[in-house]
């Protein structure tokens, strides 16, 4: 087994290679504005570091969000196109599950909530019984609306760090953004145990802004 995992649902542009036993190379750059530029060079670097080529990969793992759409689509279309070009399966995972799994490996125990920044003063979030077990569907909400339902629960992720008043036990020492290595390890575990994956389509959670720009696509030669 050789899994290539990538995730662009958080400010981290992250890629990892997993051989079925362990992560053999990983790249992680935190830059919320250059997912499109950074992802392919990162894939190339990770493969180079591991001394492998893309055609040795047996499956693609991709975080399908939730996350800001523009960046999220870069990772998903890259994964889908790799899958088609290489004729290998593409395994989708909820990106929040990767952060939860990474927190588990960093020693977090018990119940907790993962929240990431959804912009527009909202967070993407889901609740976990433990690092491997998500107990709610991922959702997008204003942090203030979560204060009561999640009261007393440990909270991790950039969304929790950003809104400390809305969450109770915010663990800033835990992963804020995604690690593709964690996502890859989680996928390897699920493949071994016959666990389920999501299709490689984005978890948008919001309807598109249905507004036409006043001057859509005006292209003026310079």
């Amino acid at each position, binding site marked *: 087994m050789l899994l290539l995992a990538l995730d662009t649902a958080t400010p981290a542009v992250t890629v990892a290679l997993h051989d079925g036993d362990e992560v053999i190379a990983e790249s992680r750059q935190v830059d*919320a*504005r*250059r*997912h*499109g*530029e*950074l*992802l*392919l*060079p990162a*894939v*190339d670097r990770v493969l180079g570091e591991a001394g492998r080529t*893309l*055609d040795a990969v047996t499956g693609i793992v991709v975080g399908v969000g939730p996350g*800001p*759409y*523009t*960046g999220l*689509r*870069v990772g*998903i*279309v*890259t*994964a*889908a*196109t*790799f*899958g*088609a*070009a*290489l004729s290998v399966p593409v395994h989708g995972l909820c990106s929040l599950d990767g952060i939860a799994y990474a927190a588990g490996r960093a020693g977090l125990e018990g119940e907790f909530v993962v929240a990431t920044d959804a*912009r*527009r003063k909202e967070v993407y979030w889901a609740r976990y019984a433990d690092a491997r077990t998500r107990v709610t569907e991922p959702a997008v909400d204003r942090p203030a609306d979560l204060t009561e339902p999640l009261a007393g629960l440990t909270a991790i992720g950039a969304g929790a760090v950003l809104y400390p008043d809305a969450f109770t036990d915010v663990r800033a020492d835990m992963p804020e953004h995604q690690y593709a290595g964690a996502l890859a390890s989680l996928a390897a575990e699920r493949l071994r145990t016959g666990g389920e994956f999501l299709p490689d*389509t*984005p978890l*948008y959670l919001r309807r*598109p*802004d*249905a*507004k*036409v*720009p006043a*001057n*859509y*696509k*005006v*292209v*003026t*030669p*310079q």
Partner: protein
Amino acid sequence: MALRADEPLVLGIETSCDETGVGIVRGHTLLADAVASSVDEHARFGGVVPEVASRAHLEAMVPTIERALKEAGVRARDLDGVAVTAGPGLAGALLVGVAAAKAYAYALGKPLYGVNHLASHICVDQLEHGALPEPTMALLVSGGHSALLLAPDITSDVRPLGSTIDDAAGEAFDKVARVLHLGFPGGPVIDRYAREGDPAAIRFPRGLTGSRDPVYDFSFSGLKTAVARWIEARRAAGEEVPVADVAASFQEAVVDVLTRKAVRACADNGVDHLMIGGGVAANTRLRALAARRCEDAGITLRVPRPKLCTDNGAMVAALGAEMMARGRTASSWGLSADSSLPVTETHVPAPQGSHGSHGLHTHDHVHELSKKNLYDS
């Protein structure tokens, strides 16, 4: 036409607006032109909604690539290169195509060419009428662009002579269609009504045609307003609006200015060919008037079939193939989508010393609606 195996076999991806286009060409020969359009999803909004377009591109990307390969009867591994529209266009939409093209080229171990959308609109005519004359004069008219371009070398030297200072020609069609309650997009339906109408019924203004106006620039905003005012005055007076005559007279004002300026540009620059591309090139009156005026002026007119005039992947593949045939530098794996890529940048070569894979280009992606950074939503 005989296929020459030494001509580059290139797959092109286009996602700058609402069409997901994947085309395959060998040199100047069209092998496949697969297009998935999200136009119906935008119709109820009266224009292209960027987020709706981006979502549709992602959904359509892999199926459209596979459809193009099947249509062309070629295997992915036989491709010599992958080309993609790097800009200009809707930022989020471009990004989907650029990411897909990079992944495809990388997985196949083939070079990647990020090319200019406008130069692609010109280059597509090579698939229809053979090698472009050098220089070529091009009039590009669509919902997004209205430009007169002089192209001494389509792979490296495209010069803007003039462009619209306000609305694109196709946008004016959309807006007039909206005032007439004819729906979106406006181009085809106005064309249809105009055939039943009198183009001389109403004398609408011809923008920027005064003796002191810029010779090659266009303006369609004043025309659009004049048409709207004329219609509203009729409605206010309780009179019926003669839709066919309004459509014909409006359309005549647009194509009169476009063809007059294009023919003038050819004459001024000593160019004996005119190429017309972009979605509005499908307009039957534009084709007819351009044909007559070019003939009168001794200019050879080249207009590709309508399906190659609207946005498609074949045009991108055509320019990519020309880039390969002329040995132009491939793009790096760090290629950016650039929503305002200048027309003078015919393609986006890898920065020197980047060995085609690590060069990074930094600039902000700005959202069309909020003007905030694109990645903020």
